[in-house]
């Protein structure tokens, strides 16, 4: 930066009229500086309207079989579709954010949901200039993704982030998000308030309007993603990091009651992690028998690493947390998915040079898992791994700087005895 300032100073003193040259010199100096000093890459690596230039990509399959991605580059949120999951048609502008920074990182990202009638919903969170209090907006397309309506705020007033949407088979769209409004009220009243709240709403008109929007539980951890899955009866279940007691950031999984007024469930584990901002949310999947499966990261006194547990009684109790991943390789950001072919989990590992995505599958509802297998890797920046089902099969959806966007089928081998990091307690199951 010092060299850069000197270049700029020289430019300003010597030739104040040549603004363009100065800008070019600054760019050049910036590039040289980053190359020589810190090997720092410019984020993002490119600025074109394509998935490979984004930090995150969120996938959904439309009814016609097309894969859609939502992603952002700069201040613009795009949707792009592909018939072969590799080659994408020119991106369509879904929305342009004004007056803020778009959340586009592993935990909070522009999202897309395809509804049964062909409607596409794209959501994003923009944070205003001087605050981390965001606001969530939704843009809709009813012409197969050719164009999107002007984005509408999900909630009037700021304080919302970490949105998630899912469509039920009956056509209702559920939304959940973390909401700071109760926390702000408390602060104004001079009271302490841990975390934020978890709020839920739903739409019966294809995402045009949302009803029931309400904070249902207070004290969610305010910096981790929310995960969601539909239960057998079509009602949504949510998993999030919660603040228990004074500051213990463990996990909560709960189902929306039929009247939409309550979240009913329970605490997954007691990891004893008194912490601040893990930036590391859980993942939830529900199988055809109605068992809830949850995976999470903790660094608590009771346990450290990635863990898995399940509940067969609607969150009243959970199985003993079972560790997975190689602790020597910083396992992180697990995702779970139940597909017709079985229950899958993937996660990241990093050995100091290479980031790998490992996968396992279970055919007995999480009691035993196949041996971990590396399904993709990269030696540059990458998004969190996501899982998506298509025609009964499970796919890894992963965006990396080096390889761009990839949709990879997961291996469907028979579950074998797990070879590592699976305590006996986990095999007893429930």
């Amino acid at each position, binding site marked *: 930066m010092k060299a850069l*300032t000197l270049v*700029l100073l020289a430019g300003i003193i010597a030739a104040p009229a040549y603004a363009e040259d100065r800008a070019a010199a600054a760019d050049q100096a910036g590039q040289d500086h980053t190359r020589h000093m*810190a090997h*720092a890459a410019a984020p993002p690596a490119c600025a074109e309207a394509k998935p490979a230039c984004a930090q995150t990509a969120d996938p959904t399959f439309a009814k016609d079989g097309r894969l859609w991605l939502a992603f952002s580059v700069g201040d613009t949120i795009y949707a792009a579709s592909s018939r072969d999951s590799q080659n994408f048609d020119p991106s369509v502008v879904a929305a342009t954010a004004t007056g803020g920074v778009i959340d586009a*990182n592993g935990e909070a990202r522009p999202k897309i949901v395809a509804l049964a009638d062909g409607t596409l919903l794209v959501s994003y969170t923009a944070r205003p200039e001087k605050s981390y209090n965001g606001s969530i907006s939704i843009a809709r397309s009813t012409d197969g993704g050719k164009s999107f309506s002007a984005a509408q705020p999900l909630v009037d007033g700021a304080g919302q982030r970490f949105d998630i949407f899912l469509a039920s088979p009956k056509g209702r769209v559920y939304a959940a998000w973390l909401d700071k409004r109760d926390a702000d009220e408390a602060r104004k009243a001079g009271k302490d308030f841990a975390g934020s709240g978890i709020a839920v709403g739903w739409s019966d008109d294809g995402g045009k309007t949302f009803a029931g929007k309400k904070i249902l539980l207070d004290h969610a951890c305010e910096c981790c993603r929310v995960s969601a899955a539909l239960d057998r009866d079509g009602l949504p279940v949510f998993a999030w990091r919660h603040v228990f007691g004074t500051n213990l950031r463990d996990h909560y999984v709960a189902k929306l009651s039929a009247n939409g007024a309550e979240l009913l469930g329970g605490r997954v584990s007691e990891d004893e992690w008194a912490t601040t*901002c893990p*930036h590391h949310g859980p993942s939830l999947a529900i199988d055809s028998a109605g068992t809830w499966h949850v995976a999470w990261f903790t660094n608590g006194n009771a346990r450290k690493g990635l863990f898995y547990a399940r509940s067969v009684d609607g969150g009243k109790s959970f199985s003993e947390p079972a560790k997975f991943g190689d602790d020597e390789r910083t396992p992180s950001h697990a995702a779970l998915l139940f597909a017709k072919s079985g229950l899958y989990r993937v996660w990241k590992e990093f050995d100091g040079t290479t980031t790998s995505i490992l996968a396992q599958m279970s055919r007995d509802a999480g009691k035993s898992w196949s041996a971990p297998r590396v399904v993709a890797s990269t030696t540059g*920046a990458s998004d969190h791994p996501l899982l998506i089902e298509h025609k009964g099969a499970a796919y890894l959806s992963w965006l990396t700087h080096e390889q761009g966007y990839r949709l990879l089928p997961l291996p469907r081998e028979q579950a074998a005895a797990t070879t590592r990091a699976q305590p006996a307690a986990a095999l007893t199951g429930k």
Partner: protein
Amino acid sequence: MFGKYLRLVAAAGALLALAGGAASAVEFKPYGRGSFAELRKQHAGRPLVVHFWSVTCPPCLAELPDWAKIASEKKSLDIVFVNADPDNDRPRAQSRIDKAGLSNLVQYGFADDFVERLYFEADKSWRGELPFTALIGADGALVTVTGTIDDPQVADWLARAGK
């Protein structure tokens, strides 16, 4: 986008320097691969605190003024701040630094998207949780702590190091 912000920040810095203005425009040095080792080398022989924070981490923001206090009280302690946000969050990081009274201290900003690597270089088991503080003794002994400044590990270390 990166270039544009860099240019704006640099231009503002250059103009202020020309005008002889105070350092209210924070200079975020690029923090990339190798920066952690470089910092340890630069500050070898002196107790060093490398404090990582983010504008999206409320506890981080709440305690920034406490770090300003420590910095003013403990002159023999070197304190370096690393903003772990991407480049487009830097303007608001700057306003937070100004507000907390930390503008005169050394500021770095993440300048590499390959964040796993930046985390790994500071601590093999760090996954990016914040605030995160690396405490390096004059003898080079490294302790890393996830948590705020009142975490007993941080508080004890600070009490022992520097005056």
